């Protein structure tokens, strides 16, 4: 039996499942870290937390690019037949928005540090110097990207909440396999 790495039209494979939960965990961690680092009183701790936030941001960007490539190059399992037309559309829209925001949020952070007059190098996990994006540095540009990063983060929290609510609804209310199929590869749900 193949190792269930890839997706097919009935189930998610391990690669998609691991990427989903890994990215989910890091994203939630980044929300928390982002809030804490802006509120901590010690400037030293703030500096270190910001560098950590940047490190995880670059890790996320890499994982998200991998995930989108995997998603485009793989089959996507169909939704249960019981799912109505409106929900199918809503799910597709929210999923598209989730992918867009997964890409836009780390990119806006990268833009933010690239245009900052402070010129603090990005050195993910102290491993290598990540070059800045080719953008013009200015305080105005930095404020713009800071706001963008914030708004995207809030929008992201909203989308994630919607996504989680939908998953829980499927599991506890509709009692289908939409949530469990993202836990382990399984095609034995009542959908097909």
């Amino acid at each position, binding site marked *: 039996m193949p190792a269930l790495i890839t997706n097919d039209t009935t189930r998610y494979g391990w690669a998609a499942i691991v990427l989903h939960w890994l990215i989910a965990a890091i994203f939630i961690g980044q929300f928390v870290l982002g809030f804490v680092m802006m509120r901590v009183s010690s*400037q*030293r701790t703030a500096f270190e937390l910001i*560098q950590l936030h940047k490190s995880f941001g670059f890790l996320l960007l890499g994982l998200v690019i991998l995930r989108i490539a995997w998603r485009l190059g793989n089959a996507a399992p169909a939704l249960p037949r019981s799912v109505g037309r409106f929900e199918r559309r809503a799910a597709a829209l929210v999923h598209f928005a989730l992918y867009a925001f997964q890409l836009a949020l780390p990119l806006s952070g990268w833009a933010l540090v690239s245009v900052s007059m402070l*010129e603090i190098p990005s*050195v993910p996990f102290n491993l290598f110097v990540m070059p800045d994006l080719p953008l013009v540095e200015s305080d105005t540009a930095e404020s713009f990207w800071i706001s963008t990063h914030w708004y995207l983060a809030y929008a992201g929290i909203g989308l994630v909440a919607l996504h989680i609510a939908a998953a829980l609804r499927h599991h506890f209310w509709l009692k289908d396999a939409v949530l469990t199929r993202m836990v382990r590869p399984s095609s034995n749900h009542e959908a097909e």
Partner: protein
Amino acid sequence: MYARILGFAAVATCLAMPVFAAVTLGDAAGSYTISPAGSSIRFSIGKLGGGGFDGAFARFKGSIRIDNSDVGRSRVNITIFPESVGTGQSRIDAFLRSDAVFDAANNPEIQFRSTSVKRTGETSALVTGRLTARGKTFPEKFTAELSGLKAGTIKFHVTGKVLRSRYGMDVGTPIYSNVVHFDMTLTGKRS
């Protein structure tokens, strides 16, 4: 005859020498107060990927005493007020003043007290001393080059490297180098 020529040559040499040697540490004996007007204490820190940032301390005070008979017994004392740090970026200045780096509120002074001065050339010396910052004291070395001496004014160009981690200021390493390069111009007025 030859002796007289040699004697003349010797006198000529002696006359000629002081023109160059006028600026020597031996002639500079005396006590000086560092004058902020003609002095500057600048520093730079490199960062990964090239570049770095420069800064300067606007307020400091100090004295230089050059011993008449023995330059080696000369003394240099400098007090820097870290609150006066300036880098051209107010956010960096605030960060440097905060407890992340200087903790200027609780440690308003950085002090250097020389312990030995060793001549290394006609116009240069190696100054060893004790540097105290954030309550920590370590021996440090600076190279002093006499760059001017006239009418009660003495001028040194002083350079040296300090490892900031020893003074509890390792924040930002390794992104920002642990090595702080100092470049100072110290002008003393005879006191």
